[in-house]
């Protein structure tokens, strides 16, 4: 190169073959695709949150509060479909995996950049189909996000379109998974052996395997339901000889591993953030790495615990109950290692760490109540009550959602080259944290007392819990929207950051320019040691400088 002092422009300013908006929409740069995903995800998340808020408003008092029962059924279905298929499943891998996975392993891009862009388009098409299904005559699906047979083949609402949307979103997810596995196998920087990879890579890698192995099953299952609706093919409908419980099995063979697709990347982010803000080498690197693989493995074998009350031999019940408890072990290994890393650390309580601590707190509650449901006798008691709703939201929102927010605040300066107002972010965190717990904790109590999930109406004795819960949503939702507001504002107008290593992190993304240049590295770095090496709470740089 003749112009050594010439500074490479950042990926945000880079001008490729296409300019302006097309430069984004047709870009195969993994960072730009990550941002595209971020924007579209935030839009769908906003829609999903609004539906959630409506559910809470309706449940404020018994009987009709603001919407009629049919609308209510449609709204909780849409809340579920949007949140599951358009936010938490793509969530962290699509945004932060795309943006940071290649950087963290020292690569210039993913293995198949064009397929990567294709996956975003499939995601958008799937999302638009789901939205179209709301607007078309016939009305939005009212089956719940699980599309249980036989109601899903009998209802006259636009279930087929919603099924098709989920099918396409599955393809998007498969492409991302396929891309990540190949990238991790083929494009690691010299010296980065498997056990020198950052822990988030282990998470993304395990997630990618579940995406590939489980998603085809839901794809075909949903497609079969669509066929059954369209052509009256006898497959699941008992009127035609089919078996609805078989549908449930096929549905959960994917959808249970899918919750690990949702939580594993968030666990990776937590493992990334804790050593940086505790200024300590991560405790038990190998255990955390292997526990991700173990979760992916065991998590694929527990699906039938969703059908304990649906009719199953007692032998199967025992086996699936046991497997369900086993999957708690690798999750607990992670929690203990994170806490052990914090112990005697030099803790710098920044906003990302706050979200991470909230993650550990809430995930532990969500996880332990999950083990409770794995116990057969308790499951009979709490099945289909709001206890399940609380458990699920503690794991998926208190876990994955908070992990997502943590990642946003952690990588924000690297992604946009700007910094948010830390004081404001910290205050917002408390709003989100308090609002979340006020919203969901009462659901544990009323569920235990017998409040069924998904019901439109309820007995007056549950009203106090519903009121507290709805009150929580009034704290939570404005706080989240405030967060979105300030993140958008500071992404565009915040104080510029040019410092490479904003937080004092050891992983590769902190050794390159802020924001990163078009192909991340001018020269691929050579890695010599494990990530997260701190000595007496000081950073030890182990990488040969990426110039």
């Amino acid at each position: 190169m003749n112009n050594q002092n010439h500074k490479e422009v950042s990926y945000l300013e880079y001008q490729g073959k296409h300019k302006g908006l097309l430069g984004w929409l047709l870009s195969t740069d993994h960072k730009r695709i990550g941002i595209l995903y971020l924007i579209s995800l935030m839009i769908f998340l906003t829609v999903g949150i609004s539906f959630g808020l409506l559910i809470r408003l309706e449940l404020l008092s018994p009987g009709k509060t603001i919407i009629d029962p049919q609308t209510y059924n449609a709204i909780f279905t849409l809340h579920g479909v949007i949140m599951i298929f358009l936010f938490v499943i793509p969530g962290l891998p699509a945004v932060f995996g795309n943006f940071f996975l290649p950087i963290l392993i020292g690569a210039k891009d993913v293995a198949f950049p064009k397929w990567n862009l294709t996956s975003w388009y499939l995601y958008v098409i799937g999302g638009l189909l789901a939205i179209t299904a709301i607007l078309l005559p016939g009305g939005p699906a009212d089956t719940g996000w699980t599309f249980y047979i036989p109601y899903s083949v009998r209802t006259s609402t636009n279930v087929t379109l919603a099924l098709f949307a989920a099918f396409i979103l599955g393809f998007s997810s498969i492409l991302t998974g396929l891309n990540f596995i190949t990238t991790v196998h083929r494009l690691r920087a010299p010296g980065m052996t498997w056990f020198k990879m950052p822990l988030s890579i282990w998470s993304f890698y395990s997630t990618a395997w579940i995406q590939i192995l489980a998603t085809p099953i839901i794809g075909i299952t949903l497609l079969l339901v669509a066929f059954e609706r369209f052509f009256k093919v006898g497959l699941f409908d008992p009127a035609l000889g089919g078996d609805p419980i078989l549908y449930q099995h096929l549905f959960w063979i994917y959808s249970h591993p899918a919750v690990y697709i949702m939580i594993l990347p968030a666990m990776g982010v937590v493992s990334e953030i804790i050593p940086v803000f505790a200024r300590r080498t991560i405790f038990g690197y190998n255990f955390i790495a292997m526990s991700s693989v173990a979760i992916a493995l065991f998590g694929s074998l527990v699906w039938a615990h969703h059908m304990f009350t649906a009719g199953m031999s007692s032998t199967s019940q025992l086996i699936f109950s046991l497997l369900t408890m086993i999957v708690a072990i690798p999750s607990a290994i992670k929690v203990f290692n994170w806490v052990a890393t914090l112990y005697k650390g030099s803790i710098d309580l920044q906003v990302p760490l706050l979200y991470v601590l909230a993650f550990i707190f809430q995930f532990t509650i969500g996880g332990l109540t999950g083990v409770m449901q794995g116990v057969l006798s308790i499951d009979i008691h709490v099945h289909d009550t709001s206890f399940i709703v609380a458990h699920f939201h503690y794991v998926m929102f208190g876990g994955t959602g908070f992990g997502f927010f943590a990642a946003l605040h952690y990588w924000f300066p690297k992604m946009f080259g700007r910094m948010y107002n830390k004081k404001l972010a910290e205050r917002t965190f408390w709003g989100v944290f308090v609002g979340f717990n006020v919203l969901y904790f009462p659901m544990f109590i009323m569920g235990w007392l017998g409040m069924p999930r998904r019901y439109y109406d309820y007995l007056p004795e549950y009203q106090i819990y519903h009121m507290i819960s709805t009150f929580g949503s009034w704290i939570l939702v404005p706080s989240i929207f405030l967060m979105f507001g300030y993140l958008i504002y500071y992404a565009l107008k915040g104080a510029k950051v040019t410092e490479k290593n904003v937080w004092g992190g050891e992983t590769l993304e902190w050794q390159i320019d802020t924001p990163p240049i078009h192909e991340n590295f001018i020269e691929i770095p050579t890695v010599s040691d494990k990530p997260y090496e701190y000595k007496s709470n000081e950073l030890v740089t182990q990488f040969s400088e990426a110039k």
Partner: protein
Amino acid sequence: MSSSEHTVTHVHRDDVASRMGMWLFLFTELLLFGGMFILYSVYRYNNPDAFHLAAKELNTIIGTFNTAILLTSSLTMALSITAIQRNNKSLSIFFQLITVVLALGFMVNKYFEWGAKFSHGIYPGSDELLSKPAGEILFFGLYYVMTGLHGLHVLIGIGLILLMTYYTVKDVITHDNYMKLESAGLYWHLVDIIWIFLFPLFYLIT
């Protein structure tokens, strides 16, 4: 653009990665059909007699003929790859086209087979079929869905191979860069192997 280093985009070729990606994709395809094989196994186990009776109505001769056609097409596909490896472009194109012709032959047979069933009133949702016992409804439901999805894969395969032929003509696929053709070949063998399982399950086990 003035400076060259901005216009030069990173050209990355990694055949091992492409092969790995293709195999992973084939894995997902297998699992996709796997879901249906589970349905088949469970329903067969629950309705052994009905499945036995229904399977007798399928035409084993057409099925065998189609099996032979698909196996041969897999051979010609493999030959086309070997031809391009030996830098024999026209021979490779010839074998690719033969593969397409065989695939079309498979579809034509399928058309007549399905057509005969339809004319007997056996198709999803028909009164004739719905009057049969539940097990037979399930059998024919699975038959139409599984061979239908397989047929869809054959059609996609035809499109894919024709695209490869175009690439070969245009020298995008050459004797030292034939990964695209190899991937298409892998896909075609998958289509073949799924048929190898569908054939005995529907036609031979009675």
